[in-house]
Structures are given as C-alpha cells and as structure tokens.
C-alpha cells in the first residue's frame, strides 16, 4: 500500500510557525508602542491616571478654621509663649520651612526638614517616618514635645484666656467657649481647611487641554515613563506609601554621613527593613517648598529631580527631560482661598 506523503511537510510547518510567531511578536511590540508613556498625552479625556485632581471643595467649619488660623500664628500656644506653628511653616513658603532644619527660639534645630502643611488631610500618615496615623495624634504629640511647642492643651488655653479677644472669639464659635478641647478642634479644622485645588495640572486633568503648556504635558509623560509615578501618585501625588531613599544608588554613601534621623521609619517600627525608609512626600505645591528631602539636602527643584532620578530611578537625566519634569512639577502649584499660591 503506497504511503501518503503529507500535503505540508514538517519543515514547512516549522517555517509557518516561525513566521506566525514573528508576526505576533511584532504586533505585540506595535501595541506596546501605542501605549508608550513617552508620548505626551494630548487628549483631555483620560483613562486611569496615576494622579487625581484635588477636590474643589472640602468639609470643614469656616468659623473654627478662622480661629485655628489665628492660633497657628500665636506664640501663646507654646509653653514659653515664644514659638508659633508659623515659625516652621511659613505662609510665604508653601507652609514649609525655607531652611533645611528649622531653627526657632530656645529650641534645638529640628532633626528633619519641616514639610508643608498644605493638603495634610490627604496624607495617610504624618511625619517623615509616618509616626502619626491622624492629624489628631500628630498635633497632640507636637503640643507636648519639648523640642516643638513644649506645652499642653491646658497650658495653651490658660495663656490664651489672658487675651480678651480670644475669649470673645471662642465664645462666639463654641457654645462652651475657650476650653482645651475647643482650642484643639480649632487647630484641627484649620489644618483640614488647608487644601490647594485647581492647580494648572488639575485643570488639565479635569479636561482643560489648554491649562498647561506642551512642555508640561511632555514632563508628565516623562514623569510616568521614568517611573516617578510608581511612588508619587494619588490625589496628593505621594503621601500614601513608604519607600527607601536610595533604591538603586546609595544616597547616604554619597552624602558621606548619616545620623539617627536618617533611619526614618526604623525609628518608629524598630524593624531592620525600615532603615532609611520614609513616607513618600506629596508633590503638591512642590515648587514652593524648597529645600527638599527629609534632610533638606536638595536646595532647588532641579537638584531634587536630578537626585531622585539618580538614587531612586538609577538614571542620569538629560537636561531636556529634567526641564520638562520641572515644568510639570511647577504646574502642581494650586490655589488657596481662590488665589494662586
């Protein structure tokens, strides 16, 4: 019986398979290229983006917040009546400090750079090491900290009660007037009111394609393609996870020294894995809050971008990309009470 030869030989099958594989691979590459983040986003109808605009309105009590604002600048809040919150959180400096380490009357210099108070309500933990879970626990700790306010709610209330205008203001806002609990509530409401919506980039995210320049759009594409958005994402563009400083290159070896504050989250948890780990800071209003990092070691936004690319992303940025990234970061400066910061 004659044996039938197959219509297509085995070699031929192999060749077909090889060609098919090549086509599928090329199609895959083409597909990937279509979604390459290095292309600026031109459409204002976004899909899932790592960054969300800040809400245009938030809940807080305006009368309490106004009272809290006065207390924020009031030295009588401190035990020796010499230090106010605004000594480290300057209004003209994005409610951050312009010095690497805060230096105020009768206190040792702060171990870390004082971060901005704007948009703190969106942070899931507070302080560089994430020691505090809420605004309440944070201000309670700062009030009694001998290196900060060196006071207590009771002492601050006693000192405030010596001023007639405070007694009157508290009586008009709170039914039970000036009490330690109400002083605390006023400060908390002020902190919750510190929201800076409507940054140019938020306007862009909300659909106004003309709100930012092509350079900013390119910077945002760089921000994603370089991997910055792996950590800086969400409504606060950071502030919702912990990360080690020096993921790909050794930050402290290059700086040449380190001290206890550099241990970051380790100082809170005492776990080895948390050495040199910090809460990723929010990038909202970042253009206003130099110097940068927990140690205030980057004096300018350009230097901060260069260092982050170097230590966190293992990259040396070309000047063109760095400029685009800085332009994008500058577009994150929002408005407070309707006025651009």
């Amino acid at each position: 019986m004659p044996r039938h030869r197959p219509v297509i030989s085995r070699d031929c099958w192999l060749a077909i398979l090889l060609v098919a594989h090549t086509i599928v691979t090329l199609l895959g590459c083409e597909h990937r290229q279509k979604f390459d983040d290095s292309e600026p986003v031109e459409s204002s109808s976004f899909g899932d983006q790592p960054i969300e605009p800040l809400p245009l309105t938030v809940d807080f009590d305006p009368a309490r917040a106004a009272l809290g604002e006065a207390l924020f600048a009031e030295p009588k809040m401190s035990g020796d009546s010499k230090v106010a919150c605004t000594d480290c959180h300057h209004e003209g400096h994005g409610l951050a400090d312009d010095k690497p380490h805060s230096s105020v009357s009768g206190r040792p210099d702060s171990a870390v750079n004082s971060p901005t108070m704007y948009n703190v309500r969106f942070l899931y933990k507070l302080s560089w090491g994430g020691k505090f879970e809420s605004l309440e626990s944070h201000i309670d700790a700062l009030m009694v900290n001998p290196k900060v306010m060196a006071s207590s709610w009771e002492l601050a209330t006693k000192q405030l009660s010596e001023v007639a205008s405070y007694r009157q203001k508290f009586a008009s806002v709170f039914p039970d007037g000036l009490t330690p609990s109400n002083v605390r509530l006023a400060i908390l409401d002020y902190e919750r009111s510190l929201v800076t919506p409507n940054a140019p980039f938020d306007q862009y995210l909300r659909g106004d394609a003309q709100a930012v320049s092509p350079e900013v759009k390119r910077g945002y594409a760089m921000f994603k393609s370089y991997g910055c958005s792996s950590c800086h994402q969400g409504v606060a563009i950071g502030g919702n996870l912990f990360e080690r400083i020096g993921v790909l290159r050794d930050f402290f070896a290059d700086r040449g020294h380190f001290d206890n504050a550099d241990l970051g989250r380790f100082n809170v948890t005492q776990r080895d894995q948390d050495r040199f780990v910090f809460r990723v800071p929010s990038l909202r209003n970042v253009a206003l809050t130099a110097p940068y990092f927990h140690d205030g070691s980057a004096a300018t936004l350009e230097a901060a971008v260069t260092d982050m690319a170097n230590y966190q992303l293992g990259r040396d940025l070309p000047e063109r990309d760095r400029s685009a990234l800085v332009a994008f970061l500058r577009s994150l400066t929002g408005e407070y009470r309707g006025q651009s910061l």
Partner: protein
Amino acid sequence: MNASRTLRSSLAIVVAGFVCLLAYSAVESVDYAEEQAYSRDLRRVQAATAELNERVLKSRSALMTQYDPLVHALRDLRQLHERLKRVPDFLGASAAVDLRAQLQKSEAQLREKDELVENFKTHNSVFKIRCTISRSWQTR
C-alpha cells in the same frame, strides 16, 4: 364586699402582671435599628475585605495605578472595627464576650493585612521602577 375585694385583687394582679411584662420587654427587647446597623457593619467587614483584596490584585496587575484606593479600603476596615467594638446591649453578656473575642481575632488579622499591604506598596513600586528601566534598555 367579697366580690369587690376579689375584683380589686384581680385588678391588682392584672396591673402587676402588666408592669412585669413591660419591665421584661424593656430589658429583653431588641432595638431593631441598632441590631440592623450592627449586622450591616458585620457584613460590611466581609465586603470591605473583599474590596481591599480586589484592589491589591488590580494594583499588582497594573490595572490600578495609584495606592489611594488601598489606603481608603484599609481606613474603612479600621473604622468598621472601631464601630463594632461597641457591642449592642441586647446581645447579652455571654454573646458579647464571644463577639469581642472574634473581633480581637479580626483586628489582629487586619493589622497583619495592613502590614502586608504596606510591604506590597513599597515592593510593587520598586518593581514598577525596575520595569521602566528594563523597558528603556529594550528601546535603546
């Protein structure tokens, strides 16, 4: 005279019985609004845990590009546990003890989950950075 006394006694017994009934219902009755709210919170723990798990999976698969939804899910779970600590009175002492023991177990699991999610976010971010580096090498 006897009839009147019998009538008064009967009335007194009826009134006393009614008072006892009222007292019993006040002690043993179930506040349905409270019961429903508590049951809803108990069921919500399961739903919120499922939501958190789903969000972690989405994040791991790069279907979600931010961690705020993870943070919010964990915050919701913590708030639920805080509310559940206030066990309704109508449950009785032994049921309350049993429930509190289960809540403690659930809180311990939540703390563990919280820690795991924290580690996931940190490691996932580094993984994503390494992916971008490897992609940039491929395109060179």
